[in-house]
């Protein structure tokens, strides 16, 4: 199965029944798969006129009660930012897949990159937070898509799944999880009287139940600052509460949201911090380094946002050197790792930004080379 196909299958497994999108390399196979499968499941596939309309349709469908998603790549993801902000502000559960390709702009349409990491976190104006997950294998394309929907539904937040082109287009043999094998979370629904329903009145867990448009609960969702009832409210105390709440519902559940995997980190002098396809380059480099007598381990960031700073810091304390391979020029992950490990750590970057893959040899050269 291909990575992109596994994302579509994972979404369907998670209960997604609405896809609106505009095809773009290297994400188009997700749209193709959804166009074949969703109508047969009573779901909806719509090819929209562009990415702005796509995310708008996804938000509308989600508010009408459907688990909804879209898939795109850099240029389309840029167009989605404004409405993605609306999804944050309106606390609309949805999943956006950004299969990362090399930019800037339309860049290298068929080549991989990991250069949207900061755009995923900060691409929208205003003070807000999202969750982002990054798969490194076809199996993870499936499982992390299910997790993405679960997080979106549980925390009423857009979740970005951020495979790179390599992982999206890669084919591997995978055992598709059986129904019931993976947990599937559905959003909380209101149970009280429709007249008393407040769409932004959070429960103890920081998340408010969400009704569906078209039912007996009539409610308002606005991109402007609003109160518990969803109607405009410009009171400073209300604004402060809203912004805090949008962050806190994620921060409070940070330990459930932050997912990492470690390989050979029990005894190590060198820690590799990786995500997506570079995880596999990193693991191959670490295996070779151990063969050459250098004890190396790998921390794979499955969750990229919120950033796994504590996990990086904890393993970083046990290492003499930290190496961050990533397919971008600017060291978007390395900057976050630096914050976590402090200014004194021997932190080395391995960057490629020409649309080609970081090899284990690239990493070994930096890891084993003199400072």
């Amino acid at each position, binding site marked *: 199965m291909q990575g992109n196909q596994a994302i579509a299958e994972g979404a369907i497994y998670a209960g997604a029944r609405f896809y609106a999108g505009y095809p773009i*390399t290297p994400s188009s196979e997700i749209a193709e798969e959804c166009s074949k499968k969703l109508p047969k499941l009573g779901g909806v596939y719509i090819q929209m006129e562009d990415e702005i309309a796509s995310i708008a349709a996804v938000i509308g469908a989600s508010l009408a009660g459907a688990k909804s998603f879209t898939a795109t790549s850099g240029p389309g993801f840029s167009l989605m930012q404004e409405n993605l902000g609306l999804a944050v502000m309106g606390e609309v559960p949805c999943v956006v897949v950004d299969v990362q390709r090399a930019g800037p702009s339309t860049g*290298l*349409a*068929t*080549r991989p990159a990991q250069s949207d990491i900061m755009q995923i976190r900060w691409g929208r104006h205003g003070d807000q937070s999202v969750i982002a997950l990054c798969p490194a294998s076809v199996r993870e394309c499936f499982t992390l898509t299910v997790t993405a929907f679960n997080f979106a539904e549980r925390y009423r937040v857009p979740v970005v799944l951020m495979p790179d082109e*390599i992982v999206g*287009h*890669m*084919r*591997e*043999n995978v055992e598709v999880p059986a129904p019931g094998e993976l947990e599937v979370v559905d959003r909380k629904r209101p149970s009280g009287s429709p007249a008393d329903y407040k769409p932004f009145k959070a429960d103890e867990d920081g998340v408010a139940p969400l009704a569906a448009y078209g039912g007996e609960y009539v409610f308002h969702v606005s991109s402007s600052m609003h109160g518990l009832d969803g109607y405009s409210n410009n009171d400073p105390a209300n604004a402060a509460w809203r912004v805090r709440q949008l962050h806190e519902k994620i921060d409070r559940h940070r330990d459930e949201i932050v997912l990492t995997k470690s390989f050979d980190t029990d005894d190590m002098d060198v820690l590799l911090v990786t995500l997506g*396809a570079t995880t*596999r*380059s990193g*693991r*191959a480099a670490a*295996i070779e380094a151990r063969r050459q007598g250098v004890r190396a381990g790998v921390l794979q960031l499955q969750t990229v946002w919120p950033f796994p700073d504590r996990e990086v810091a904890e393993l970083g304390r046990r290492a003499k050197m930290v190496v961050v391979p990533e397919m971008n020029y600017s060291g978007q992950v390395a900057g976050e790792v630096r914050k976590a490990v402090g200014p004194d750590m021997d932190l080395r970057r391995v960057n490629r930004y020409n649309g080609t*893959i970081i*090899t*284990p040899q690239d990493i070994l050269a930096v890891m084993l080379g003199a400072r």
Partner: protein
Amino acid sequence: MEHRMTTESKHVEVILAGTGGQGLILSGILLAEAAILEGKNVVQTQSYGIASRGGLSLAEVIIDTGEIVFQQVQKPDCILVLTEEATKKYETWAAKGVPILYDSTLVNARTDPNFTGYAFTQTASDMGNALSVNILALGTVTAKTGVVKMETLEEMIRKRFKGAAVEMNLKMLAVGRDLAGR
């Protein structure tokens, strides 16, 4: 030079390279899926340009009895090249003992003993099916290397194609297999 990996080999890496439109990524997928049918772990990756015709296009297939950590080919066991551009990209591997099968219709003749030329495109054209050169060449690669069983590949073709395309592709595969014996 005979270089048989056999279906019992633990770890095998294959590169299929040519130009966009020759269908080599499909060949890679068929090879990968055949190996899965034989119970192996497989990773198949690809690289191509923005045009649907032309430009370097390639598929990589890694087959292993255990976990495949790095997803890209590091040391190929066999390379198929269908254009001069692809041949130039990989020809240094021949000096390192890697067998390279090239399309003598489209690629200038090579003298290194690790190169073997086959008239893939000419043969496919003579059969009135130039577009099936990918399946024909896959038949040669498979027969030459034994990386998967020919029967498994035939099973994949029956699964993948419909109607008249099944027989036509099975025929191209068989012609490719027979080319390898020459």
